[in-house]
């Protein structure tokens, strides 16, 4: 009964945003291509963009950087032949131009515009670059059996074979069920079309190699996966620290590319084996808590580097004498869905607070005025507030504290990690409005229902 009362409201609330929020889907044609690099085990979005080019930047016929070549490629799918003639640049040249070290490649994934999820085709480096590939002009297929035979009657499927290089064609034309030697006779550049750009051709390693479906059209992204993993190493492997001392660990990264070094460095996670001895924040900064031994580990994926930290008992006694409570007053700036300034006021209890300390590290709680002007009490290390995402390492400040603890006045700043335009799509407001409309519709229906009863 209730549902019947407000079914139209619910229906409208559900359908209107759903219908209008359908995003346009990229279907096929592409004008540019990107080369992305990463390591085995990484997800697609972790790969780092090495280079992206429009087709004009690459096509020497239009003043681009790469030499283009014309070649014929043969394929066999088990029952039919497929011939392609293309003009394009060699994949090897593209990768070298992009600055990719071919010797370090483990595998290559090709993403195409007509496939929405995942790679269309993947190769190991060995299969694509280290195995000689050929064009076979003498392949013909028995229409009844689908078996290959030599078109020239010689019985030699290899007759006339010529080596080919994997190519990304800028323009091409293709033909099913043709014989290469005949296909070549009809070669005519006026048949070229750019409508399948960038069209991957790579030929065959043997006449009976089946690989027709791998000649991917509309390639727009190439994922290069390097062999091995990034190597992490700590510059300090053993540390002797005193309680209350301040120390930041540095980790070096050796990866195949500077871009990967930067990426890995910015995504390292830090962990202390014993937080009663030492704590570590997201940037490798240590806070010594108490005596004992701990191992601080920096890690990224399966790579890690460790530092042994020893905090002596005597030194602890000397430096942990002061305890007290502190209050931090801070100002912060932020920009997000809007923009504004805010004040952070925190009170907290400090344990063994040093003469100068960070309010952000030590304030146990704070009352903060957010940029949107809303007062609330919160934990100082809270990382989410409203639509903002606060960077874990961004809450910092300096506090002036009495030598025995006491009250500390601190300044803090909050860096707001904004939602990017990509993530801030209209789907979110649509979803919010949808919920609002549905809730109101439900409320309205309930009230009407109750009144009628």
């Amino acid at each position, binding site marked *: 009964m209730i549902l019947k009362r407000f079914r139209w409201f619910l229906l409208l609330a559900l359908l209107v945003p759903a219908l209008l929020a359908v995003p346009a889907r990229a*279907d096929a044609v592409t004008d540019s291509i990107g080369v992305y690099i990463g390591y085995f085990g990484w997800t697609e979005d972790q790969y780092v963009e090495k280079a992206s080019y429009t087709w*004009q930047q690459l096509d020497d016929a239009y003043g681009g950087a790469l030499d283009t070549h014309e070649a014929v490629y043969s394929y066999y799918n088990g029952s039919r032949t497929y011939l392609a003639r293309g003009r394009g640049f060699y994949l090897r040249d593209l990768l070298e131009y992009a600055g990719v070290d071919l010797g370090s490649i483990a595998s290559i994934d090709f993403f195409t515009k007509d496939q929405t999820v995942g790679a269309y085709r993947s190769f190991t480096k060995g299969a694509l670059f280290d195995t000689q590939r050929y064009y076979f002009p003498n392949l013909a297929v028995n229409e009844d059996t689908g078996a290959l035979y030599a078109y020239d009657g010689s019985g030699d499927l290899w007759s006339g074979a010529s080596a080919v290089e994997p190519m990304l064609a800028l323009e091409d034309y293709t033909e099913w069920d043709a014989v290469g030697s005949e296909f070549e006779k*009809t070669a*005519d550049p006026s048949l070229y079309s750019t409508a399948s750009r960038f069209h991957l051709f790579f030929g065959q390693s043997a006449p009976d190699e089946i690989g027709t479906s791998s000649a991917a059209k509309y390639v727009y992204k190439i994922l290069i996966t390097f062999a091995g993993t990034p190597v992490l190493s700590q510059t300090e492997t053993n540390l002797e620290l005193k309680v209350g001392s301040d120390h930041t660990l540095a980790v070096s990264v050796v990866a195949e590319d500077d871009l990967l070094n930067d990426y890995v460095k910015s995504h390292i996670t830090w962990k202390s084996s014993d937080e009663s001895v030492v704590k570590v924040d997201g940037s490798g900064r240590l806070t010594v808590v108490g005596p004992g031994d701990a191992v601080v580990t920096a890690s990224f994926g399966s790579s890690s580097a460790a530092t042994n930290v020893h905090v002596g008992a005597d030194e602890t006694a000397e430096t942990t004498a002061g305890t007290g409570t502190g209050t931090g007053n801070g100002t912060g700036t932020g920009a997000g869905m809007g923009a504004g300034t805010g004040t952070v006021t925190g009170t907290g209890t400090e344990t063994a607070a040093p003469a100068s300390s960070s309010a952000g590290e030590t304030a146990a709680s704070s009352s903060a005025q957010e940029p949107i002007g809303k007062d609330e009490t919160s934990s100082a290390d809270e990382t989410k507030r409203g639509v903002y995402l606060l960077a874990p390492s961004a809450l910092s400040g300096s506090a002036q504290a009495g030598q025995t603890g006491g009250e500390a006045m601190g300044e803090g700043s909050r860096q707001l990690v904004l939602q990017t335009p990509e993530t801030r799509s209209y789907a979110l407001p649509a979803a919010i409005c949808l919920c609002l409309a549905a809730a109101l*519709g439900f409320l309205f229906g309930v009230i009407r229902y109750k009144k009628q009863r």
Partner: protein
Amino acid sequence: MKKLLSALLLAALLCSLFAGCAAKSASAPAGETVSFTDSCGRTVEIPKTVTRVAPSGAVATMILATIAPEYLVSVNATPSSSQYRYLPQNLAGLPTTGQMYGSKSTLNLETLLGCGAQLVIDLGDKKDNMTADLDALQKKIGIPVVFIEADLTHMAAAYRTLGSILSGKQERGETLAKFCDETVDMAETNSAKIADADRVSVLYTSGVSGLDTNAKGSVQSQVIELVGAVNAVVVEDVSSKGGGNTINLEQLYQFDPDVILFSAGSIYQTVSSDEAWAQLRAVQNGSYCEIPSLPYNWMSNPPSLNMLLGIWWLGNLLYPEVYSYDMTARAQEIFKLFWNYDLSADEAAQLMADSALSRPEG
């Protein structure tokens, strides 16, 4: 309370509606609009001043590139390196959207939305379900989409219509329309002069087998009949797609054409040494040639304004006494008119190098 709730609910629904439209508002037409009734009978509000258009496919790109290349904000595909020299140079730098129709629709809505078009124009022959297709596209992208019929018989009207909706292009549209009218009138007049007994039967074929034909009644073969010839291929289920109707060798010999026209990439170069074809009368007589193919196949494929060039060429090829003019000069005039390209006599000769019959019929 009830009114308040109703108002709130309405507000929420409107908010959700605007939220859904937010991403599209940037590309919505702004300013004054006029009503336009397209060739499907759809009435569409289009901007009064149109200077940024996106073609929906190959034919639309071809036609718009002749009347207002500077108004194009996208193309279906970048011109190939062979075509590029003859066409307006700005085409190569435009984003590519693919095409709405064809063997596989590849229209890239993302690119279409991002190219800043005020209007999407589809040109060509009328197809089934076009109204629904165009309405759906228009609704999806939030940009007006219109269809203007532009097969050979509607080409002049299409140019006039384009001249009326593209800002400042009325005169250019009329010039091109007049050329279309003159060409068709010329062909009809000359065709009427040809006695039925003298009408040549023509096979228009393509593909590496040479057996992919454009049969009588297909859009692709319109030029043949217009110039006064007869299409040698008569089949029941006529296909107007690019590949046409594939016939077998037995049918080929039954049709026994007087003249064979091979598309580029077919077997023109090898047919005389091909045992399967060698006994065919047209081959034995040398009555075969290759159709000029730049910047587009002059006979069709795609069927568009290139067919006008084909009319002049095929008429002159088959009936030089009736279609009596210098084809080189005529090709130069047409290249200048359509693409503002100064075709040299040498280039014209090169384009038509394999396009003469060794023993002309007619």
